[in-house]
């Protein structure tokens, strides 16, 4: 089996805006970067009939997800002239309004960062074994399904 560097992308709980700010600040020392593209997923309080989503509980099959993510990372770097890419996905209960996904790509010119960011978000949603359980105000729940 081929070896890939497997980086953890999962964090317990929501991703704070301050953490995102700090991640951006760290890149000021790399003066070869001209463009950053960031995607943030935020938990939405969708209304389903009489119910309102209060939070989403995320679980994953971590071994498989991280192996798949390493594969995606390798393919994205082969395809786009990126300087760096950072990905953070929440696990556990994330309340409406909180951030559950942070994708951050950087490159010399904007095209690579923008294209890679969009592509990796699609691949995360379609290919990573992660599940979101939408928890309603009355404590019932339903399982999210990503639409392609």
């Amino acid at each position, binding site marked *: 089996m081929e070896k890939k560097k497997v980086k953890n992308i999962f964090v317990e709980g929501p991703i704070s805006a301050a953490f995102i700010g700090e991640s951006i600040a760290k890149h000021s020392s790399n003066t070869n970067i001209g463009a950053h593209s960031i995607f943030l997923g935020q938990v939405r309080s969708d209304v389903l009939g009489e119910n309102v989503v209060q939070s989403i509980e995320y679980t994953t099959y971590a071994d498989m997800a991280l192996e798949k993510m390493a594969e995606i990372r390798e393919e994205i770097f082969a395809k786009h002239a990126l300087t760096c890419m950072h990905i953070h996905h929440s696990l556990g209960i994330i309340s409406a309004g909180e951030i559950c996904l942070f994708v951050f790509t950087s490159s010399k010119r904007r095209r690579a960062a923008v294209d890679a960011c969009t592509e990796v978000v699609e691949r995360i949603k379609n290919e990573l*074994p992660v*599940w979101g359980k939408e928890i309603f105000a009355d404590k019932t729940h339903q399982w999210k399904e*990503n639409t392609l």
Partner: protein
Amino acid sequence: MSSSINIIAFGRIAEIIGTSSRSFPHVATTNELKEFLNVKFPELKKVKYAIALNKKLITTDAAIEVSANIALLPPFSGG
């Protein structure tokens, strides 16, 4: 002693089979496993799910080794 296989399940599938990790008698292939599970847990017939063998999604019928990591995966909904 007949051999068994260990199966992990996630999300809605874990709810249906009542646990996230469980042993079953060994079956030879992933299609046979699906048939076995559909009989044991009729509710599974209503749910779309995939099988991963050793962390790889199975798209056609595949042989199951006794030592395989077998996972039952409902539709993904990360991000």
